[in-house]
C-alpha cells in the first residue's frame, strides 16, 4: 500500500498538475457562479484538455472543475438570491437573507468552510469504502455485470426528470447510440449508410467526448438563447463585510456538519440522486437539530449560518459520495460523474475492481487530487471573495459564443493530428447539441443518454457473453443470486419514484381542494 501511495503521490507531485488543478478550480468556481453554466458542462468542456495531459493530471483537472463548480454555485445564491445551479437551491434562502442583513462575507466564508468539510469528509468515505465495494465485484461474472449495468441505467432513468417513460426512452436512445460502430464480437459495421460511412471516422462509432460536449455544452448555448434579451447584469451587493464567521459558531454546528456530511455522502453514492436532493434533506435535518438545541443554534430559514452550512456541507459531500460507485463499479452517481467516467474510459482506465488491482497508484493519485481540489476550492473561493460581484456581472450573452467555440475546438482537439476526424467530431458535437437542446426543451432528461452511451458497450458485451456461457439460455440472469438482487433493486428503483410522484400529485390535489 505504501508503495502505491508513494507512486500515486509521484504522479501528482509536479508543477503541471498543481497548475492545471489551480486553473480548473478557478474555472470551476466561475462556472458554478454563473447561472446557466453547470459542473457537468464544465467537465465536458475540459475533457479535451484533460485528454492531452497525463492521466492523474487530467483527472485532477476535471475533479478540480467539479469541486469548484459545486461550491461556486453558492456565490450567486448568497449574493443575488439566485442559485448558480440546482445544487445551491437550499442555500439561497438563508444566504440571501444574510446578505440583506449585511453579512454576505460571513455567509460566503461559512459556505466555503462547509464545502471544504463536505468535500474532505466525503473523500474519507471514498477512501474507506470504494476499495471494499470494488472487492465485491470480484464475484461478478458477465451475468452480474449485465444486471449491474441495467441497475445503473434504470436508476438514472427513473429519478432524472419528472417522467419515468421519458427517462427509459432516453436510456434506450443512449444505448442505440452506443451500438453505432462495430460489433464487439464479429467486427461487422453497425452504422446506417455503411457503404457511405465505412471509410469515415464514424465507422468507429460516435466519439464519446464530442457527444458529451454536444449534449452538455452546445445544447446549453441554444437553450440560453431564450434569456439573451432578458436583463443580464445583476448588481450584487458589493458590501461583503467580514469574511470568517466566528470560530465558536462553526464549532457549535458540529452536529449539523456531521449529519449533512452523512446525508450528502450517502445520497451521492446512490446512483442518479444527486446534490439537489441531498441539500434539502440536509437542511431538514439541520432544522430538526436546531429545534432540539434549546436555542443554542439558530433555525434555518431565518437568515442564519446554519441554513447555509447544512446544504453546503451536503452538496460538496455528494462529490466524494458520487465517486464511490463511479470508481468501484463504473456506475456514476450523477451526470457529472458520468462524464468523469467517460473521461477515465477515454484515458483507457476502466473503473471497477481492475482499476483497484492493476492501477492502485492511479486510484491513490485520484484520492489525492480530490483532496487538492478541495484545498484549492477553499483557497480560491476565499481569496476571490471581493471579486465575485464583478464575476457575476459578466453577461451570458458574451459567454455563450465562447462556450460554443470551446465546444467545437474541444471535440476537434480529441482527434489530435487527424484533422478529418476532428471535423467529424465537431459535426457529431453539433448534431448532439441540437438533439440535446430539443430534448431539454421538451423536458427529456439527458443523464440517461450519457449512461446508455457509457454502459451500452459493457452491457452488450457482458449480456452476449453471459447468454453464450449459459448455452443460449436467456434466463441465466434469474438463476444467480447477485443478479436477482440487482433485478430486485431495478424494480424498486422503477416503482418507488412512480409511487412518490403519485403521492405528491395526490397531496397537491388535496391542497387544491382545500
Amino acid at each position, binding site marked *: 500500500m505504501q508503495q502505491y501511495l508513494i507512486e500515486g503521490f509521484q504522479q501528482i507531485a509536479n508543477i503541471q498538475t498543481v497548475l492545471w488543478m489551480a486553473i480548473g478550480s478557478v474555472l470551476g468556481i466561475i462556472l458554478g457562479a454563473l447561472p446557466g453554466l453547470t459542473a457537468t458542462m464544465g467537465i465536458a468542456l475540459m475533457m479535451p484538455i484533460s485528454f*492531452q495531459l497525463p492521466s492523474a493530471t487530467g483527472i485532477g483537472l476535471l475533479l478540480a472543475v467539479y469541486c469548484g463548480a459545486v461550491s461556486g454555485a453558492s456565490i450567486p445564491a448568497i449574493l443575488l438570491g439566485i442559485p448558480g445551479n440546482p445544487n445551491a437551491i437550499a442555500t439561497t434562502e438563508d444566504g440571501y437573507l444574510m446578505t440583506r442583513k449585511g453579512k454576505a462575507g460571513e455567509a460566503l466564508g461559512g459556505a466555503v468552510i462547509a464545502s471544504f468539510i463536505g468535500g474532505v469528509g466525503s473523500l474519507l468515505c471514498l477512501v474507506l469504502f470504494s476499495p471494499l465495494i470494488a472487492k465485491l465485484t470480484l464475484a461478478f461474472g458477465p451475468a452480474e455485470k449485465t444486471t449491474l449495468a441495467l441497475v445503473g441505467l434504470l436508476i438514472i432513468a427513473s429519478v432524472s426528470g419528472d417522467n419515468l417513460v421519458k427517462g*427509459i426512452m432516453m436510456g434506450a436512445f443512449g444505448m442505440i447510440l452506443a451500438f453505432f460502430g462495430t460489433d464487439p464480437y464479429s467486427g461487422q459495421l453497425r452504422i446506417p449508410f455503411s457503404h457511405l460511412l465505412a471509410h469515415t471516422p464514424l465507422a468507429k462509432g460516435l466519439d464519446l467526448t464530442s457527444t458529451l460536449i454536444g449534449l452538455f455544452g452546445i445544447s446549453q448555448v441554444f437553450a440560453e*438563447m431564450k434569456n439573451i434579451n432578458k436583463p443580464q447584469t445583476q448588481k450584487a451587493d458589493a458590501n461583503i463585510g467580514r469574511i470568517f464567521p466566528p470560530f465558536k459558531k462553526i464549532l457549535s454546528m458540529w452536529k449539523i456538519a456531521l449529519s449533512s456530511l452523512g446525508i450528502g455522502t450517502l445520497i451521492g453514492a446512490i446512483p442518479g440522486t444527486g446534490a439537489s436532493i441531498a441539500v434539502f434533506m440536509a437542511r431538514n435535518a439541520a432544522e430538526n437539530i436546531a429545534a432540539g438545541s434549546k436555542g443554542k443554534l439558530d433555525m434555518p430559514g431565518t437568515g442564519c449560518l446554519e441554513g447555509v452550512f447544512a446544504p453546503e456541507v451536503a452538496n460538496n459531500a455528494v462529490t466524494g459520495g458520487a465517486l464511490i460507485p463511479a470508481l468501484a463499479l463504473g456506475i456514476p452517481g450523477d451526470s457529472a460523474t458520468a462524464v468523469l467516467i467517460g473521461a477515465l474510459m477515454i484515458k483507457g482506465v476502466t473503473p471497477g475492481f481492475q482499476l483497484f488491482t492493476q492501477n492502485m497508484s492511479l486510484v491513490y493519485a485520484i484520492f489525492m487530487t480530490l483532496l487538492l481540489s478541495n484545498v484549492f476550492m477553499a483557497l480560491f473561493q476565499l481569496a476571490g471573495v471581493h471579486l465575485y460581484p464583478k464575476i457575476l456581472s459578466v453577461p451570458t450573452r458574451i459567454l455563450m459564443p465562447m462556450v460554443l467555440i470551446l465546444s467545437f*475546438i474541444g471535440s476537434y482537439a480529441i482527434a489530435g493530428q487527424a484533422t478529418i476526424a476532428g471535423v467529424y467530431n465537431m459535426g457529431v458535437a453539433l448534431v448532439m447539441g441540437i438533439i440535446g437542446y430539443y430534448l431539454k*426543451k421538451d423536458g427529456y432528461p439527458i443523464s440517461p443518454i450519457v449512461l446508455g452511451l457509457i454502459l451500452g458497450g459493457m452491457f452488450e458485451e457482458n*449480456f*452476449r457473453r453471459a447468454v453464450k456461457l449459459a448455452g*443460449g439460455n436467456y434466463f441465466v440472469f434469474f438463476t444467480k443470486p447477485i443478479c436477482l438482487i440487482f433485478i430486485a433493486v431495478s424494480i424498486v428503483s422503477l416503482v418507488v419514484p412512480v409511487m412518490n410522484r403519485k403521492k405528491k400529485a395526490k397531496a397537491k390535489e388535496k391542497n387544491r381542494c382545500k
Partner: protein
Amino acid sequence: MKSFFRTHKKLPLVSLVLSVFYFIYVISMGNTKMAGDEIGGDPGGMVLPMVMACVLFACSLYLFLTDKPKTQNPVALGKEERSLFMLTLISSILYILVIRCLGFIPCTAILLFMLCFSNLRGSVRYEDWVFYLSGAFVSLALELAIYSVCRSLTRALLMAGRKGSIPSVFGSSAMVVFIVLVVTTAFVVLLSVLYHRLCKEKETTFSSCGLSVLLSVATTQYLYVIFKQLFLVELVKGLITW
C-alpha cells in the same frame, strides 16, 4: 394538420418514426455471431439493438398519446431570439464545412465576432450589415497581425535556442509558449485599452462591435496558443499558410 401538432408533441412522433427505421435497419443488417461460435449460444449482434428499438418505439408511442404540449410554452423563443438561434445554427454548420478550406484562424475569428456581435445586439438586424462586414474584417486583420507576430516570435526563439544564440531555457517549447502567452496578453490589454478609449458610450452599436472584435481576437489567439502550441493539436491552416 396544424391542430394535430397543437395537441400532440412532435418529438415523440419523430422518435417513433426513427425507432421504426432503426428496427428495419437492424433487421436488414442481419444477425452477426461471435467468431468461433460453432457450438452456438451467442444471441448475436442483432438482439439488443432490436430490443432497444422496441423500447424506444413503445416509449415514443406512449408519450405521443399522453404527453400533451402546454398551452403556453415558457421556453418558446421570440422572433428576435429565433433569428439568433438560426444564425448560430447556420454559422456553426458553415464553420464545420469550411474550416478545412479556410483554416482555423479566419473561421474562428469571424464566427466569434458574428456571434458575439449578434448576441450583444440581441437579434440579427439587417441594418447592421456595415458593422458585420467591417467588424469581421477588423477581427480578421487584428487576429492575423497578432498571429503573425507570435508565429515569427516562436520560430525565432526556437531557432535561436537550437543554434545556442540564446540560453537554452528560452528556446524550450514550454518557455516559448509562455512567452507567446505573455505577448498575447499584452496585445489583448492594448486592445482593451483602445476599446475603452474609443467606446466611451456603452450599449451603442459601435461599442458592441468593438467589444465583439476584442473578444473574438483574444479568444481565437488564446485557443490557438493553448491547443496548437501547448497541446500540439493540428489546427487546420487553410488559407493561412505562413
